[in-house]
């Protein structure tokens, strides 16, 4: 029993990171109907920004309060990643706004590979894996045989807050309303005096910031390397599709489902190497029986 509670806690930790990244996929898809395959690598970039900023900050002085360094790193990662995402959007996706959708998807694949390979080829970063330095003391608590650390609680808590905030932004604010309006009807929205380009940029900023929160937290718990974006990005993408792509709450749900799959595959199957197999098989089966995902609404085909 304790074992299973422990595993559920681990699953929540991994799942919340997947959910945070899946949000970026789903929001961009909702607005542009573009599968932004580069998003997993934007997540990877965010972990590197967090890594370099925190090493820089800790290298300057050790007397800062840990909470300050942590929040500063988080904010720096969010700002830096947003900048990268907006630059990518402006340079690579915007010229293709009127092109066939396939061109956009291919470009996104290309951007993702470009980020990975650039990080590997770029000397100061290179292919080695690193760990973000501990920004605050993480102590382990044991309650009724279940171990959990401050870091683990922080990850679950901060991800939860970020998700609730994002959901509020999309549902309650004017920007969120504009975003939903664009996903509903792209041609009428500009007539209502809304700048579509600005809203699209804001969507990318929101997606990237949420991914940066996930990236910073992930980088503190696990090691980072330039190819991490592939696996985690795909898993987050499956989360988005499983939950129903374009649906924000679906993405959160999908993230947690995938988190549970990742943690519980080695429990029921001989090795953890089967987890990719299980996850992608789930995706395939789901697409066969419910192509719109768990919470997605069926799309009406216009002739």
């Amino acid at each position, binding site marked *: 029993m304790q074992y299973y509670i422990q595993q559920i806690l681990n699953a929540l930790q991994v799942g919340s990171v997947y959910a945070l990244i899946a949000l970026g996929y789903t929001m961009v898809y909702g607005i542009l*109907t573009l*599968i932004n395959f580069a998003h997993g690598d934007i997540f990877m970039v965010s972990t590197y920004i967090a890594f370099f900023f925190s090493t820089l900050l800790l290298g300057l002085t050790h007397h800062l309060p840990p909470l300050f360094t942590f929040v500063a790193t988080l904010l720096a990662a969010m700002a830096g990643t947003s900048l990268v995402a907006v630059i990518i959007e402006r340079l*690579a996706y915007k*010229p*293709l706004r009127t*092109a*066939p*959708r*396939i*061109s*956009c*998807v*291919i*470009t996104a*694949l*290309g*951007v*993702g*590979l*470009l980020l990975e*390979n*650039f990080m*590997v*080829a770029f*000397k100061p970063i290179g292919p080695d894996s690193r760990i973000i330095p501990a920004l605050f003391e993480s102590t382990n608590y044991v309650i009724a045989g279940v171990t959990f650390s401050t870091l683990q609680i922080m990850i679950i808590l901060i991800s939860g807050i970020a998700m609730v905030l994002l959901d509020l932004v999309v549902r309650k604010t004017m920007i969120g309303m504009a975003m939903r309006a664009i996903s509903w009807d792209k041609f009428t929205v500009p007539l209502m005096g809304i700048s579509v380009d600005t809203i699209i940029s804001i969507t990318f900023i929101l997606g990237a910031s949420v991914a940066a929160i996930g990236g910073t937290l992930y980088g503190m718990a696990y090691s980072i390397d330039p190819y991490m974006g*592939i696996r985690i990005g*795909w898993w987050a993408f*499956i989360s988005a*599709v499983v939950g129903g792509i374009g649906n924000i709450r679906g993405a959160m749900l999908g993230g947690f489902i995938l988190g549970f799959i990742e943690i519980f595959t080695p429990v029921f199957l001989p*090795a953890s*190497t*089967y987890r*990719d*197999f299980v996850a*992608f*098989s789930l*995706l*395939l089966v789901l*697409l*066969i029986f419910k*192509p719109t995902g768990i919470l997605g609404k069926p799309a009406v*085909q216009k*002739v």
Partner: protein
Amino acid sequence: MDVPVSVKVPLAVKFWTRWRMKFLLCIIFALTFILPKTGIINPYIDMVLIYIGINMILTISLNLVNGYMGEFSVGHAGFMALGAYTASLLSVWVIPDSLNSYLFPLTVVIGGVIAGAFALIVAFPSFRTRGDYLAIVTLAFNMIIKSAIENIDGIGGPRGFMGMDKMTNLPWTFVWVCITIFLARNFIFSNVGRGVLSLREDETAAGLLSVNTRQVKVLTFVFSAFLAGIAGALYAHELQYIYPKGFTIAKSTDMLVMVYLGGIGSIGGSIMGATVYTVVLEALRSILQFAGISQEWRQVFAPLMLIFLMIYRPKGIMGMREFSFLIPEAERFQKISLNPFSKKNRNRKKSEELKS
């Protein structure tokens, strides 16, 4: 073809126009035997040429789905892996060494057939809707194949599989490329091929014109996977070592670059795309070495090229045009229907609009 009766064509000209292509192919085929022996083609160039041939097959295979049919597959590396592993397992475990060189074509074909069979399994559920759906399904398929191979310890798992003889040489590659081009061309200009083209333009209209859209889609996809499997089998017997990490999305992206570089919806484009891309990447190797830059920057080049292509020249080099020798004789004067981008066609459209 209606030849005006009044024009008298000399017999020699007739003979030449009829046989020149076959003649040329025979000469090149003979050269593929002679040149490596005489040392004019050194082993390095020989290898590059073989890779160009394999890449041509791959590009034509992907072009059938992404270019001619207008669907979007990103998982062709998965089919390639299936072909490669099937053929390798056959030639190492099943076929005795003495028969290996005689049964090589059979091994390659079986590799293609297995890839095609898997494509059938993927295709049936995945062609219910259009759009990103196939992209996601093929991608998942690619990942599943890679993950499955990694988990089967009997065939090497993540360490890979080796022990094949080097069966793929220049003549064999040439033969397979010719067969691929021949099959693909005849497929496109067949009855089914017309259906494929009409699907790309407008699926609903195609359905109304009694094209069995689903059947045509599945058939094209399976045929495409079959070609990818053949390319995989050849690849395995050239490199003599295959491993699951070699068949990831990066490999599929390479294929995409070649298809879009050459031009979608054009076999000639695929030939050009595969050649240019392979040669440029190989040239880059020595250029980087010369400039003293690390080889890893080579990997940056391919995606960058893809992005710039998409933004500045989405039509590719050939852009829906076709070499005339790849068009059946009876169609050569009806190029209009094949090339929506041509100036002639556009002007004709304009004048029609003006008339009405």
